């Protein structure tokens, strides 16, 4: 783990330079440990694939004292900690109506739509990081048999709740927004709500499973077209 000053009140911890489940596991277990410890004078703790950023109060820490403290904490982390992320299940209505790219993804890979749905929903995904929009969780890894690059031209409007795929990653759009990922379906659940406990359904380190639901169940749960 390297510890670099990247802002007058910011430190970047680097754990590696690849998207790699093992590197991510180390980032996320350190992130969780720091959230539990709630050290005074820490303003932000933001994990990404292979890095962790800390913003701190200048009147509480300097880069050196904080790095030193972080190294002590890192040394006391168990080498292979069991995954402690919560398991979150997200119901998804996969269909032409809710997933306009479903058929295209299937045909690119010589699969039928049912196989795409099965391959997407039978895995457990890890939330590597959250960004782009509040509550937008970057999850991996998608089965290589359905991995599909982003659209050449992003859509101006991706509906809220869209379940989407880009290369080996998947995500759910928490809000309506422009976006270039392939849309497979839609969930009726809220991903981000400032009134909701914890604000975001998904947090870094969580495990996620998508459960297919039919049209009726989608509408019954408040889903919209």
């Amino acid at each position, binding site marked *: 783990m390297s510890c670099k000053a*990247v*802002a*007058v009140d910011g430190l970047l911890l680097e754990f590696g330079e690849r998207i790699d489940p093992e590197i991510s596991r180390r980032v996320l277990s350190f992130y969780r440990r720091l959230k539990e410890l709630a050290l005074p004078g820490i303003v932000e703790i*933001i994990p990404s694939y292979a890095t962790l950023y800390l913003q701190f109060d*200048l009147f509480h820490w300097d880069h050196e004292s904080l790095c030193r403290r972080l190294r002590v904490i890192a040394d006391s982390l168990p080498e292979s900690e069991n995954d402690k992320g919560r398991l979150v299940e997200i119901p998804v209505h996969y269909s032409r109506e809710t997933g306009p790219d479903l058929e295209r993804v299937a045909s690119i890979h010589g699969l039928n739509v049912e196989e795409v749905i099965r391959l997407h929903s039978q895995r457990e995904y890890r939330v590597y990081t959250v*960004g*782009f*929009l509040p*509550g937008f969780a970057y999850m991996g890894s998608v089965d290589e048999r359905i991995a599909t690059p982003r659209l050449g031209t992003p859509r101006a409007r991706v509906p809220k709740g869209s379940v989407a795929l880009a290369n080996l990653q998947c995500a759910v759009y928490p809000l309506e927004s422009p976006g270039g990922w392939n849309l497979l379906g839609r969930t009726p659940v809220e991903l981000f709500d400032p009134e909701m406990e914890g*604000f975001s359904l998904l947090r870094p380190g969580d495990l996620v499973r998508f459960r297919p639901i039919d049209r009726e169940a989608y509408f019954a749960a408040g889903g919209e077209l």
Partner: protein
Amino acid sequence: MRGLELLRSGLMSLVEDRGRFGFGDLGITQAGAADRYSAALANRLLRNAPEAPVLEIAQGGVELLAHVETEIALTGAEAELRIGGVPRALWRTHRVREGECIEIGMARSGLRLYLAVAGGFEAPRWLGSASVSLRDRLGRPLEKGDRLLCRDLESLPHPRSLPPRLIPDWRRPLTLRVLPGAQADHFPAESLQRFYSESYRLVSGDRMGCRLAGPAVEHDLEILSEPIPYGAVQIPRDGQPIVLLGERQTIGGYPKVGAVLPMDCWRLAQAAPGTGIRFETIGLEEARRATMEMERFLGDRSEILLRKEIVIENQVLQIDETE
């Protein structure tokens, strides 16, 4: 309901405080006043807490009707201010009576004005902050007919103003101090040399960041998406720098030469398109010292560095410069 009613809302008027901190791991941006110097001093003049919510007015052109007896201060961009039809100075506290109009003209230099009211505006809060964040869909720009709530003032303190030497000149070209970042050493030496010796021009900017144009900072670096500090100078493939401000995305994948000091970012947020911009490096110790000094100044609740004024029959007597 006591408060100030928007008769004209201007291009974009947002309630902002210092910003929303501690939720970056959920993808929530910090937002906050783009020019914290002006916002914090508007509060300081009124003896408010430095983080009290203020109104950030992009380019002026706002009119408010007082349904309250209070005191206000307007800081930031240079613009005309009239209260009850009478021209008034910026960077100074003013009494406002019920029924009077506060008219704010178009910005003549600088981009954003900050209107503070005694006691601060009582605004809705989300995740611990009143800052409107368009990126996160928290709150919205104010519209005609909206009312900014505030309390009546019980006693009227002496007017206070900022010594002129502390009022920024927004027309000057900027030199932004950059603390080198995680990828700084990976850029080609000639590119970095160009970045720190040539002059750039501000093309466009908003609360998220500013795009600059000038000699390309060439590189072929690829990085994984990583968290983005305030003030980060990103260099996309075309070599044209982007400086990211308070309403930036939380993570991103462009390499960074470093981060501009926060107080220099506040100045950048006031710069008009076309402004000339240079960069210079700053060491960690010096950056830390300068930033802490600024924070102490903005957070200081004492009278030092403010000018007390006594008004006798419309004549302003500056009685003491307590410094």
